């Protein structure tokens, strides 16, 4: 019984509903500073989110007390978190070190870490992607990609 209680609160839908309610309440704070006519639609939407999430929460808790189990969000949480971290890391690296270096490292790194380990294939894919990005955007359309804040 003692381990039943926490498991009721960490059900994904319950957590999501609580998260939505919390965020919507947080957004209601700046809403009060707006003119009534400006605040009308956002306030209605936030109220809607809170109400609907509350219903979602109650339903999910009812299901929990009825003893139903929910599937976890993912079978491989470490892979998911790793993938997110790599993607975010790639964006930050592009910002700091520049698009070309970041991309040249990111493509083989991500593919290698997630199981594609053929060196020739990695080299080829990286060359094609970076090369065509450069040829089409930089050379062809004179678009600037981030040059990297570190070197500026």
């Amino acid at each position: 019984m003692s381990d039943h209680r926490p498991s009721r609160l960490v059900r994904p839908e319950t957590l999501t509903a609580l998260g939505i309610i919390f965020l919507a309440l947080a957004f209601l704070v700046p809403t009060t500073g707006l003119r009534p006519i400006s605040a009308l639609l956002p306030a209605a939407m936030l109220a809607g989110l809170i109400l609907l999430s509350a219903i979602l929460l109650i339903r999910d808790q009812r299901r929990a007390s009825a003893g139903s189990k929910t599937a976890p969000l993912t079978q491989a949480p470490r892979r998911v978190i790793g993938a997110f971290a790599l993607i975010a890391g790639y964006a930050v690296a592009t910002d700091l070190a520049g698009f070309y270096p970041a991309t040249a490292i990111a493509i083989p790194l991500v593919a290698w870490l997630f199981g594609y380990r053929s060196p020739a294939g990695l080299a080829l894919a990286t060359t094609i992607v970076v090369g065509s990005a450069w040829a089409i955007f930089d050379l062809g359309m004179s678009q600037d990609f981030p040059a990297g804040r570190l070197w500026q």
Partner: protein
Amino acid sequence: MYSDLLNALPEVLGLSNFLAVIIGVIAGIVVGAMPGLSATMAISVLVPFTFGLEPLVALGLMAGIYNGAMYGGAIPAVLLRIPGTPAAVATTFDGYPMAQKGEGGYALQVAVVSSAVGGIASAFALMLLAPPLSKVTLLFGPSEVFWVAVFGLASIIFLLGGNPIKGLISACFGVFVSVIGSDPIFGTDRYTSGQLELLDGISIVILLVGLYALPPVIDLLETPLKTDGVNSSKLGTEPIWKTLPRMGRFWKTWLRSSFIGIWIGILPGAGGSMAAFMSYNEARRASRTPETWGEGEPEGVAASETANNADTASALIPALTLGIPGTAVAAVAAVMLGGLLVHGLQPGPMLFRENPDVVFGFMWQFLFGAILLILLGGSLATNSFARLLNLPRPLLGSVIIVLMLIGVYSIHGRMFDVYLMLGFGAIGWVMDKLKFPLPPVVLGLILGGFAEENLRLALRIGRGDWTVLFANTTSLVLVALTVAVVVGPMVKRRLAKRDLRTKET
């Protein structure tokens, strides 16, 4: 005026002008097919580049890209459930289930033929009916446009999916995102926390890439070590001339969806995604087997793809005659107007008199772009792209990540948008796992702020008097339509239940 139309033809058929359309269509298909890249981004990258080109070469490229991308967006929508453009969201409903059943090739062929049908119908509307149709646009002032937006929002109820509560949460979220930015009337900040980048509102492309493209990428990486992609043998590729006869039965849907697409196109502000959603709903309603929809019904792909291409040329009717791009959110027509201005072509009634060669030439290019879709799209799509998706999953995932960054960064040339997209990606992943439907978010974002803006303009015109919203026939017709769309199915269901009960007793 029609003689001007014919006079413009020889110029368009010149080598460089025609080549521009071909290159544009191919580029458009490629851009549309790359998850993360969008037509809006492609044309905004292209506009500065066209300063040095002949007008018809530049416009041909743009017409080609627009047409190509509207179809190209269907390719990843079908194969990966990532809509390549906002307007391809409705294509995922039946396209992706078809691909899973091993009919991906057929789905793409239906998509390319339907796209071409819609595009051709729309080009003819633009060529033959632009001036009279622009008169229709004038009927739509703020209060009428508000009702159009409400009508569009009402169709969300058909997109709620299995769990209405979750669907409504999605819709509220979408509408809330649409109010972030500057207040439509006063220009004061709403929820921007001082970020200038948020002041113009959140671009639909950023939201779309985040919500739709990131979760599948995570899935590609999550599934351990599986290195098979979408197998081309499973696509069921048959030559297109063999499958064409099977599409004959779509003629009603093609007709209806073209009509809806053209109609939505000339209304200020709505745009391709609303056209696709509406025509999908209408086609399902008219279908004799509505229960197969969403499970891989080719007619659903036909409805969505016809409508989103039928919206392209007709969106240029208000753009060329009145200077208002068909849509404020998915800004393709707006960016194209910029491309016209670059060449000294200022929209307005005089445009047709002062530069008939270029304007009518541009219209021909739209028509040729739509026709070329079948030739170029038919062969390109099923062969090259399906094979591209054959890449090992981790590699495909990492390439899509790069494309997403390029696509989002290039719209405004700033990293802020990329971070924003990642934020939406995280939200999208949770929504995807918990089965919150995504289409209501898209529709909410497109129509929410738009409805608010026009409501408040209407109220200003009425000086605070709400009856201004019901003051004329156009508004009342729209209100009646909205009520019919919302209440009609409920009544029908109630009646069907009663029928059942009377039969049982």
